[in-house]
């Protein structure tokens, strides 16, 4: 393997390592909330600095490759996608931390009805994250497109939870603190889905060389 290809491979491996960390942070934060598992929430908080450190390392590797190798075509698309995916992963990690913090706030609160939809929404979001990263690993544009389709469903779920929480708070002002926490969780999950969508769009650029962001080119 050429030296350059070895460097590209290292970049790919580091990015996969980072995506593994972030995927597990999302999983743990959601389960900390749903199962009231304090230990899982703390693990998410502890791992945050590793994710941040990796973001810097990956950016550094990518910029170095751009500067020294002047890549073109598939290599150029891979490296620019890697930089963007890296940034999305770091933001997803932050949002997992935010969910873990809300989980700790809610640890000793009575369960709220809306939790029924939060695990459902979390499942959908986790599957979008997993698919977007699988699509990246396998360079699978069909899988990436399936992520884009799910985004609207997540938005609908978030809106449903908002409305439910508003009613819930109107009925009983005592419930405002837990309801607010759940609104923040729903918002974090929805944003994680947005980042998964970004990654899927980057995969389409990587594989097909097309830009589907903001419907610049058709998504289907």
């Amino acid at each position, binding site marked *: 393997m*050429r030296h*350059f290809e070895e460097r590209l491979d290292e970049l790919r491996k580091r990015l996969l390592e980072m995506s593994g960390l972030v995927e597990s942070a999302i999983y743990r934060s959601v389960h900390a909330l749903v199962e009231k598992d304090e230990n899982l929430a703390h693990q998410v908080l502890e791992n945050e600095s590793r994710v941040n450190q990796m973001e810097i390392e990956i950016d550094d590797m990518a910029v170095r490759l751009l500067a020294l190798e*002047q*890549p*073109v*075509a*598939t*290599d*150029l*698309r891979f490296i620019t996608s890697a930089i963007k995916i890296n940034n999305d992963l770091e933001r997803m990690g932050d949002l997992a931390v935010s969910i873990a913090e809300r989980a700790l706030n809610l640890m000793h609160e009575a369960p709220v009805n809306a939790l029924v939809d939060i695990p459902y929404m979390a499942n959908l979001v986790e599957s979008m994250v997993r698919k977007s990263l699988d699509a990246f690993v396998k360079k699978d544009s069909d899988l990436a497109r399936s992520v884009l389709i799910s985004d609207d469903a997540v938005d609908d779920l978030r809106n449903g939870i908002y409305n439910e929480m508003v009613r819930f708070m109107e009925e009983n002002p005592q419930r405002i603190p837990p309801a607010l926490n759940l609104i923040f969780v729903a918002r974090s999950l929805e944003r994680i889905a947005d980042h998964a969508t970004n990654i899927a769009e980057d995969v389409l650029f990587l594989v*097909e*060389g*097309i830009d589907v962001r903001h419907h610049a080119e058709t998504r289907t």
Partner: protein
Amino acid sequence: MGAVTNLSSMRSEANRGEQITGRLLRSFEPKFRVSHLNFYYGAVQALHDISLAIPQNQITALIGPSGCGKSTFLRTLNRMSETIRHTRVEGEILLGDEDIFSMDLVTLRRRVGMVFQKPNPFPKTIFDNVAYGLRVNGGYRGAALADAVEASLRRAALWDEVKDQLGKSALALSGGQQQRLCIARALAVNPEVLLLDEPCSALDPIATAKIEDLMFTLKEYCTILIVTHSMQQAARVSTHTGFFLLGKLIEFNETDILFKKPLRKETEDYITGRFG
């Protein structure tokens, strides 16, 4: 749409300078239209059925590994390849609407100038190098000649460096200056096309940058074709790029598409260094 399988039909559409939908070539005014060009060195066929159109007032880069035919192709455009014995050419090349093979050679080479890899100034003064074509071709004398020499040296971005030493030998200039002098000499007769055959491969990065900057200003006056071994140079300077391999034109595309997402796997393999 079968982007790759339809390439030849898309290419022939491109040759007519027509609009092609989607991510393919946008329409352009063609300067050269080449159809079914074959070229032979004796029994060896160096170019196979090349058809393409070269956009006017743009910079077209020709890339490909050594021996792929890109220089041979460039040299057929002003019939320089005919200077080599036992060569044979088939097909059609139109400059504007005129068949170059039925044109007067002197006229063709005045309209289609050429600059070579190694700077080749005449062993004369700087002034006389540029004045040469003007005297022979244009009948310029006296002040008109001096003005035309200055204009060409300015266009070639060399005037400020040599204006006080026009009587000095051209051979005393640096390599980069000599190459710009050769460009000034070519420009003096107002060519419509400038063919550059690896014009920077003997130059350092600073001299290279000057020539590249110069190309951007020159495309206002003429159509430029450049053969280069440096893919970075092709990417930096050109609007369109043709990729040659084993005497065939594999892909002709807008440069940014060719370097971001080429249509053909052979192009991808070559430009990413996974060739062979």
